[in-house]
Each structure stands twice: as structure tokens, then as C-alpha cells.
């Protein structure tokens, strides 16, 4: 079993939800694909590229809420 297969196997052992398994497998694939392209930075940028839109979405909603609160 390759290391990647071992990682997927571990995740599948801990998580029973098939949808979540598939989602995690997808992220894993992307992480390894980015790493194969070159570097630690590529992995870091991949994850930042995923979390930043979520953060921006949160910030937008947060600002709208503060506005509603009169702030």
C-alpha cells in the first residue's frame, strides 16, 4: 500500500460517512498533486486558496451583522 493509500485508509477507518470520505479523498488528492508539482509552499497556497474564500465569506456576513446591529 502506498503512503497515500495508507492515509486514505486511515481516514476511511475513522470516518464512516461516505460523502465525507470522498470529500477528504478529494482534498488529499489535491494536496498530493500540489506537492508533486513542487513544494511545501504549493501545499500551503492550495489550502490558503481554499480557506481564504471561506474566511472572506465569514467576514462579509460578520460585517453585515455588525451593520444590522448598528455598528
Amino acid at each position, binding site marked *: 500500500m502506498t503512503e497515500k493509500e495508507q492515509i486514505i485508509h486511515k481516514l476511511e477507518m475513522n470516518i464512516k460517512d461516505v460523502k465525507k470520505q470522498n470529500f477528504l479523498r478529494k482534498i488529499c488528492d489535491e494536496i498530493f498533486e500540489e506537492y508533486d508539482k513542487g513544494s511545501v509552499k504549493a501545499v500551503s497556497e492550495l489550502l*490558503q486558496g481554499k*480557506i481564504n474564500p471561506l474566511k472572506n465569506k465569514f467576514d462579509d456576513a460578520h460585517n*453585515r451583522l455588525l451593520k*444590522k*446591529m448598528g455598528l
Partner: protein
Amino acid sequence: MVDRWVLKEITITGFRGFVKPKTFSSLEPFVLFDGPQRSGKSSTLVAIEWGLFGDEIAKKAIGIDERRGWKIRNTNADEARVELVLQKGEEILKIVRSDKKTKGASRFYFELNSSRDTDEAKLRAMLEIEPKDYFSSVHLHQEVIRALLTEEPSSKQDSLDRLLGLTALRNTIDGIKSAKISEVLKDVDNKFVQIETRLNAVIASKRNDIQKAKETGIQKGLKSIDFAETCAAQVCETVETALHNFANQAVLTISNLPAARTVGEQQFFVNSAKQSLRKLRDEQPDLKRQKELLEKQSQLQRLQQTYKELLDELQRVEKERKDIYKIDGNQEKMRSGISNELSPKLEDAKDRRNEIDKRAGTIEEAIKYFAAIRAPNEKQPCPVCEKAIDDVSHLQMHLNELRARLDEDLAPIREEIEKYEKEIERLEELIKCLNDLDRKIRTQSKLLMDHKSVTETGLGREIKDTEDPIVVIGGEINKIQEELKKLEAAVKESNQELNTIEDDISKLEQILMVLVLEAEIDDLLKIRDTDEYKEVENNKSELEKFADDVSLIRQALEAVLQESAKAKLEAAKENIAKMFRTLANRSDFPDLEIDPDKFEVLAVKGSEKVPALSIFNTGDLNCAGLSVFLGLGAAQELSHNLGFIVLDDPSQSLDDTHKENLVSVLNSISDEKQILVSTSESDFRDLILTKVIKKKARYEFDPWSDVEGAQPKEVQ
């Protein structure tokens, strides 16, 4: 060794230190590459890596920093090409790799049993090895051993990662760490917690505003119980009634005010009521009349003032003219005086002066004549009769006396002339002045007449010639002032009524301010039920879910890294200890272990384990590195299909005993592995040549040449 691939032949062209094609065709179970530093030995060993894995050997994932910016092709060559021939039993595997793109030809292919393939993944599957495993168990680089000797934890860990083939896993974990997802989560958590804090602050601030608004309302006459929607509705009704009553009394119209049942409607009502109040203030008839009268009064005062100014000026100019008339008469009288009296007298005086001037001129000439005579005793002709005169000086004296008398006669005449001339001049100036005054009087009279006409328009009636306009205007102003006095009381009464309405509106505003603030506090207390709050919560949980997912992957990576390290170390544990015992041969700490959790190389004596770095010297640490590598390479559990190992300059930092021990170790694994060794050390070379049991092939490298590149030659 029989069931794994071993190297049979290597051909290198234009790769790194090589320029021209070189073939290593007699690759025995033990292959020795010896020669001085920088002669091409390492290029030969690296060519095997490149042949197997291509450019991946220069990638960061491999973990060899020295390979950053590596150039594959020699600058004097037009192609880098490596051909490897491997053998397993009867099977022959040929691998060819080039950096040159040739039309119709692949840059990489392998041939097995005359069947050609270009799929690199297929080759790796057949050899059952990935680049990272090649570096951990086939090819030992000196860089790994050097890093093991350092006390810097990250370098040491990197080195062990490479020996254990875990670099990729470790770097991936580092990549996840450096994405700093936890910092993003922390920021989001802080912001979320702050919502509650800020919510409480806003509510407290609004409660404070309510208190202030109530205090202001009470100062305006409201009671505590008045701050209610029903009371606000009652005040609205009062305001509406008062506005309509006032409008009816003043015969004015205002638009209907909106309904005022809810707070929202009441706020709208306040704006409409204010507009109506403004309209009533502006349009109330008494006020309007008051404004008109004040304007009229001001206009008449201006007319009266201007009339006074014009009249004063006219009177001043007339008085000035009258004063001149009184002393010198009018222009006609003055002109007559000049022509009939002063001018003839002046002419007469001038004639008399001229007569005397003529005589005086002749005497003057005579005096000059006598003064010019150089010899007074000499007889000179008389200037009159031209006869010779004897006593000239006597005559000269008489002439001077005569001249003096003439001057005495001339002085009063001159004074007389001057007096007449000045008087004429004064009178002419006065005539001019009177002409100017006449002009001014005409102009001023015209202005006064014009202003009278304007005043008549302002008054709305004619001012007779018998009337004094100033008095007429003053009378009109008095009438206006009387009317204004009467109006003032009426306006005051109206304003009081309107002020009462305004006060009620102001009270209403205070009540509404309190009610609105209370409603806002109610809304804030229910903020958690709003869509906006739920969206924030959902977005936060989405972020947390993603962070959890990444954390799960990271945990899985770390677990696999640990397990893989443990499995590899466990499988090679005996071999590593055995190799170390043979190589280092230490009596105090004979064994070696690696802590798979802390990635620490430990020196072992029975149950006692201490960090190797704290007690090992450089040679021992080199032995430790070699032991880990050779132990991993020899472990049967870590299987791949390559039956050779490559050691690049393994005897660095080893003393003579260690070198001999290393040869013993190599002998011990030579049944399992084909061994390729490079060395620049002649004593180690000699040890290999004399002590290694297996059949050997030796390639000696001459010093490197710019034109030829590496120059190996087989030594029989």
C-alpha cells in the same frame, strides 16, 4: 540478488561531468570508482538516478538542497543521455533517457524482452521503487550523513526523513502547517466572541440613550408613564387638532396628516406635522402683514433719508453762491469791473512803465559804454554827437544818478501793475467758481425732483409743491408704526399657539425616541434569531468543518509518517544494530537505535539509551549514518526490485579501523546486494581491492578535462 535487478552496463553521454560517450560495461558484483575529487565519479552515480527517475531527482521533494538549479546537460554537449542495462536472472532491462527532444522519438523508454515502453509509472511499478525510497535504501549521499552530524533539530530530522524515505510526507505536513489555518480559525473565533461583547455594549449604550431621552422628556413636561405607544397616539391627536384649529382660524389650508397608530406611523406623522407647522408659521396673515409693513417702513425711511441728503447738499451749494454774490456780485458785475475799470488802469500803468523803461534802456547802454572804456584819460567820441569828450568819468557819474532816479519812479508803477493783475485773476477765478456752482445747483435740483417722483410712487400719492416731502414721509412712517404695534400683539398670540403645538411635537419626538430605542433593543436581543446571525454561524461552522477536515488529513499524515518510520526502523532494527556493532565497534555503547517518535539517534548499552550526538565523535556518527542506510538497504522487509546499492564516498571522516570495519560490513551484505562504491581515498580503495571478497570491477578516473570531461578507464 538473483531475483532482483542488478546493473550490467552504463553508458553516459553529455550528462553533468561527461562530454563524450563513456560505457561502463563490466559491472561485477562489486564496482569501484576511484580517483581524485571532481573527476566525475559522483556524476557517474547520479547518472544512474537520472536514468531511472529523470528530472524528479532534482525536485525539492527529494530533499537534496544541493540540486537546486541543477544543470543536467554538460555545457560542451548537445545532448545528455544515459543508457542503463539491468539484469535479473535471464531477463535484460534496458532504460534510455535523453534531455533532447527529437521528432518522432521519445526522450525516455525502456525495453524488456525486446518490448519497448515509454510509461515511466510502469517501470517504477516493475522495479517497485519510488525516488524517495531510492534515496533511503539504494543511493547514499554524503549530504545525508553530514546532516546527521548536526545538532540542528530540523536538519537532523530532515536527514532521518531522507534515510527513512519520509521527506515527502514530512514536507506535506509542513505545507499544511504553513497554511496557518489555525490562525484563521482563531481570528474567526475572536470575531464571533466579539459579536456578543459588542452586542452588550450596543444595548448598554441604547439603554443610556433611553435614560437621557426620558430625562429630556420629563424636563419638557412629560411623565414617566407617558413613554408609551398609546400616549404617543394621544399626543399625535392633540397636535393634529391644534394644527387644524389654527389653520381654520387663520383661514389657511394644510394637508391631512397621516394615521398615527404605530411607532413607525407616528414617526412619519411627526415629519408631516412639522411641515404643516412650518407652513402655518410662514403663511399666518398677521405675520405676513407685519412683514409687509416692516418692509414698507424700511423703504420709506430710506426714501426720507435720501431726500434729506439731497436737500442738504442743494442748500449748501446755494449758500456758497449767495456768499460770493454778497461780496463780489454776480458774474456780470465782475466781468464789467474787469473790462471797464481794472483793464484800462492796468494798460495805463504798463504804458508808463514802458516809457520809463525806454529811457532807462538808453542810460543803461551809455553806462555799459563808459564801463567798457579801458583808458579813461583818452579822448573818446561822444555816443550822441561823436565829438571827443575829455571828462568821461564825470558824465558817467551823472548817468548813474539818473538811472537811480528812474528806478525810484518805476517801483510804484510796478506795484500798481501787479495789484491790477491779481485782482483780475481773482475775479476770473470767482466767475469760474460761480459757473460751477450754477451747474451743481441745476443737477442737485434735478436729482431732488426725480427723488420726489420716486417717493410719490413709494407713498402711493402726489406730493404737492406746498408740502414738505420729509414731513409727508414721516407722517406715513408714523401710521405704519402704529399699525405695527397693533399687529405685534396678534402675532405674539399666534406664535404662542404655534409654539405650544411645537412643544407637543417635541414631546412626541422624545416619546418616539424612547420607543424606537426600546424596539431596537428588542431587535438586538433577538439578533441570534436573524438570518444575518445564522449566516455568520453557518459560515463559521463551514470554516471549522474545513479546518477539521484538514486537521484529520494532517493527523492521518502524521500517523502514517510515524507508522512508516516505526515499521521501517523495526524492520531494519537488527540490521542497523548489527552494522553499527561491526562498523563502530564501541565497547561502551555497542548498539544503535533510532527513536521513531523523537527522530533521535540513540547510543545503546543494554537498557541505557542516550542521544548519540552527546557522546559520539564524528567517525562514530558517520558510522551511525552508514549503519542506518545499510541497515535499511539490507532489510528484506523493505523490499523493492533493485539488487544494488550505491555508496558515494562513504569513508569520509572514518579512521583506519572504521574503514576496515566498513569493508567487513560491505562483505557481509555483498551476497544480497551488488555494491557500487566511489572513493577518492587511496587507503580505502586499497582496502576494497585487497579485502572485498566478491569479484570486482574497477574504474579509475583521471583528472577532469574541459574538452574530454570525465575520463574513466577500466583497470583490470
